[in-house]
C-alpha cells in the first residue's frame, strides 16, 4: 500500500514526466509549472530553471507552446500544398516573384499564401501574423526582413523572432563548388549546421552602469544536445564521415565548454562518424587556406553566422547558396547568408540561384522530389553549361535572363508546362 504523502507524489510525478519527456520534447512550460508547485525552492541560479536528473530545462521566452497533439494536419488538399511566402525587403520580393513564376510555369502543385511584414513598423503584429500562417501551413519560403537600426533597441530582429518562436533550431547550409563558377578554391563540399535559436542571438542585453553594457550568451545543454544530434543524424543520412565542432572553449570555458561536451556525448553514440573540434579562429584561417579538409561542421549561433558567410564566399558568393531552417514541426527556407540586398534591389541584377535552390529544398521537404530535381537541374544547367552569370559572378546577365533560361531548360525537358 503506497502512502500518499508529498514525497511519493513528487517521485511519481518525476517518473511520469521523465517518461513523457523521453517520448516528446515539448511542453517545457507545463513541466516547469508542475515542479514549481511541488517545491518552490527549486529555482536555480538562472532564475527559472530546474535541474532534473542531469538535464536542465529553461523556460525560454517566446517558446512555441503548442504540444504535439495540437499541431494541425498539413495543408495539402487535392494534391496541392499551401506554403507561406514572406517577401521581406530588398531583393526578397523580386526573387520570390521569380520563384512563383518558375513554379507556375512548371505546374508545381504549390500555392503560396503571401504574408507581408513591414520592417518599418515597431509593433510585432506583422511578424506574429506570419508566424501564425507558418503554424497553419507548416512550411515557409522567405526573403530577409530588414532590421532597421533607426528603431529603438527594444524592437527585436524580426527574423530572429520568427526563428525562436517557431523553435527552428537547426540552420543547415550546404556549400558545394559548382563547376561553372570560377573560385580560388575548388572541390569544396561542406555542410554547416548552426544552432539557430540561442547563443549570442538571445537578445539579452542590458546597461547596468552607464557606459557598461552586458550581453548574455545563452548555451543550454538541451539545445546543444539537440543540435549535435541533428548534425550527426544528418551526417549519417548523407553518408558523411567527419563532424567538426567549432567553438571558443579556451576562452568561454563554461559556455562553449558545455557545447563541446554535449557534442562529445552525442558523438559517442555514432561510432562510425569521426568527431573532432577546432577553435573558431583556426577554423576561419583553415577555411581560407585549405577548405577541402572540412566535411560537416556544427557550431553555436554566432560562429555559425561567421563561418557560413566565409564558406558562402568561398564557393562563389551570397547569391548561390540556399539555406534551410528546420524545427521539429516547421521548416522555413531562405538564402543561406540572409542578405537583404537593399543596394541591388529593383535593378534586375540580383542572382536568383540561391532563392531558386532554396525553393527546391522546400519541394524536397514537401516530398515533391520530381519537381525539385527538375528545377534544380535546370538551375545548375544554366549555371554550369550555359554559363549565364549575373554581375556578382562576374557575368553580364540579368536576373530575368537567368530565370527565363531556367524556364527554357525546363521546357526542353518535355515536361507538362504552362506557357510563358
Amino acid at each position: 500500500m503506497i502512502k500518499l504523502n508529498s514525497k511519493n507524489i513528487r517521485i511519481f510525478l518525476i517518473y511520469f514526466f521523465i517518461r513523457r519527456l523521453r517520448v516528446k520534447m515539448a511542453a517545457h512550460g507545463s513541466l516547469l509549472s508542475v515542479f514549481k508547485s511541488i517545491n518552490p525552492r527549486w529555482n536555480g541560479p538562472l532564475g527559472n530553471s530546474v535541474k532534473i536528473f542531469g538535464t536542465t530545462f529553461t523556460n525560454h521566452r517566446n517558446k512555441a507552446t503548442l504540444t504535439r497533439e495540437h499541431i494541425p494536419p498539413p495543408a495539402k488538399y487535392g494534391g496541392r500544398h499551401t506554403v507561406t511566402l514572406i517577401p521581406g525587403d530588398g531583393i526578397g520580393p523580386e526573387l520570390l516573384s521569380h520563384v512563383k513564376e518558375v513554379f507556375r510555369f512548371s505546374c508545381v502543385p504549390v500555392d503560396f499564401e503571401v504574408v507581408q511584414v513591414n520592417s518599418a513598423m515597431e509593433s510585432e503584429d506583422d511578424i506574429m501574423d506570419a508566424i501564425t500562417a507558418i503554424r497553419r501551413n507548416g512550411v515557409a519560403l522567405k526573403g530577409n526582413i530588414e532590421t532597421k537600426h533607426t528603431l529603438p533597441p527594444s524592437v527585436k530582429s524580426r527574423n530572429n523572432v520568427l526563428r525562436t518562436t517557431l523553435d527552428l533550431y537547426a540552420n543547415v547550409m550546404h556549400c558545394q563548388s559548382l563547376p561553372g563558377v570560377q573560385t580560388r578554391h575548388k572541390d569544396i563540399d561542406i555542410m554547416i549546421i548552426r544552432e539557430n535559436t540561442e547563443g549570442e542571438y538571445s537578445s539579452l542585453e542590458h546597461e547596468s552602469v552607464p557606459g557598461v553594457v552586458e550581453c548574455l550568451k545563452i548555451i543550454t545543454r538541451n539545445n546543444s544536445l539537440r543540435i549535435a544530434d541533428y548534425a550527426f543524424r544528418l551526417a549519417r543520412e548523407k553518408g558523411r564521415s567527419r563532424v567538426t565542432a567549432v567553438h571558443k572553449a579556451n576562452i568561454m570555458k563554461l559556455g562553449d565548454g558545455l557545447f563541446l561536451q554535449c557534442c562529445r556525448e552525442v558523438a559517442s553514440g555514432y561510432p562510425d562518424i569521426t568527431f573532432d573540434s577546432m577553435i573558431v579562429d583556426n577554423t576561419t584561417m583553415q577555411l581560407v587556406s585549405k577548405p577541402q579538409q572540412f566535411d560537416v561542421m556544427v557550431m553555436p549561433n554566432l560562429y555559425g553566422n561567421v563561418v557560413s558567410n566565409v564558406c558562402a564566399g568561398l564557393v562563389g558568393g551570397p547569391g548561390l547558396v540556399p539555406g534551410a531552417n528546420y524545427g521539429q514541426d516547421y521548416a522555413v527556407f531562405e538564402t543561406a547568408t540572409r542578405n537583404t540586398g537593399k543596394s541591388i534591389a529593383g535593378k534586375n541584377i540580383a542572382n536568383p540561384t540561391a532563392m531558386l535552390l532554396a525553393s527546391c529544398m522546400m519541394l524536397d521537404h514537401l516530398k515533391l522530389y520530381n519537381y525539385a530535381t527538375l528545377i534544380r537541374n535546370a538551375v545548375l544547367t544554366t549555371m554550369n553549361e550555359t554559363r549565364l552569370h549575373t554581375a556578382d559572378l562576374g557575368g553580364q546577365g540579368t536576373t530575368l535572363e537567368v530565370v527565363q533560361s531556367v524556364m527554357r531548360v525546363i521546357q526542353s525537358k518535355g515536361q507538362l508546362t504552362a506557357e510563358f
Partner: protein
Amino acid sequence: ASRWQQLASRQLSLSPGLCGSESPLARADAIFKVTMIPGDGVGPELMTAVKDVFKAGDIPVEFEEFHLSEVQHMASEDKLDHVLSSMRNNKVAIKGKIHTPMEYKGELASYEMKLRRKLDLFANVVHVNSLPGYSTRHNNLDLVIIREQTEGEYSSLDESIFSCSDKSRRIAKFAFDYATKKGRSKVTAVHKANIMKLADGLFLQSCAEVAQLYPKIKYENIIIDNCCMQLVQNPYQFDVLVMPNLYGNIIDNLAAGLVGGAGVVPGESYSAEYAVFETGARHPFAQAVGRNIANPTAMLLSAANMLKHLNLEYHSQMISDAVKRVIKQGKVRTGDLGGYAMCDEFTRAVIANLSV
C-alpha cells in the same frame, strides 16, 4: 492549331509582373490526363457536353473513361481497382453520380461510398453562386458549403483509421484554409450540439481550436434548424459553412435550390492527394435519360473549376465566361431554368460563345 503556333512563337514578355492580363496558355503537346466516370442517369449526357466543349475550346485535357455503374450491373471490384489506379496516376477526376440501387444486394457500401472511402475524399465543397441574368428570390448569392464526407469510415488506401476528433480537425482546417485561400471573411459551423452533445460538441470544439490559428477569419456557429430557416430568409449572412456529414446533404440541396436548382451548382471533393469534380447536388436524374433535357451548366462549371485546379487558368476562365454569358443572354435556357432549349442546344450555344 494556327492560333497555337502564333502564341507559341510569341516573344517572352519583358517582365513577369507585366504579363497579367494575357494569361498563359498550355502547350498543345502537353496534355493533362483526367479520369472520367460518367455515372448513371444523365451523367453520360453531361459528360458528352463537357467533352464537346473541351474539344471546341482546344483544351489540352484527355479523359480516361470508366463506366462504373451499379444499377446497370457494370460494377465490380476489378473495375473499381482500375479506376483507383487511374486516379493514382492522374490525381484529378470528373464524375457523375453513381446511383445506389434501392434493393439490398448484400453489400453495405455503395460504389460511390467505396470510391470516396478508398480515395479518402474527406471534404466536399459546393459553390453556391447566383448566375448573372437568372433571377431567383435571392440574387447575388455567394456561398461555399464545406462538408465532411467520410465520417465513421476508414480509408483503406492508406490503412489509417482517423479518430472522430482528427476528422473534425481535418475538415475544420480544410474549411479555414479554403477561406484563407479564397479571401473569405467568415466561417460558420453548423451543428446540433444541443442534442448530440458529444459528437457535434467534439466537432464544435475542433472548429474552435482550429479557428485560433486564423485570427483574420471570423468564426461562428449555428444550429442546423436555425441555419435552414436563415438560409431561406436571409442567406446573405453566410459566407463559408462547414458541417459534418449528416447535415451536408440537406444543406447542399437547399442552397442549390436557392440559386436555381441541381442543374446549376458545381461541387468538388478533396482528399490530401486527389480532387474529384462533380455537381454540387448529386442526383442521377434518371427520369431525364434520353430526353436531352438535362442542364449541363453545373457540370460545365465544375469542369472549369477542374481546369483551374490543373493550373489552366485561361481555359477555366474561358469556359465559365461562356456558360455565364449564355445564361445571361437568356435566349437559350434548359427547362429547369424556365426555357425550352435542349441539352445539346445549350452546349452548342456555349461552344459558340467560347471567346477566341
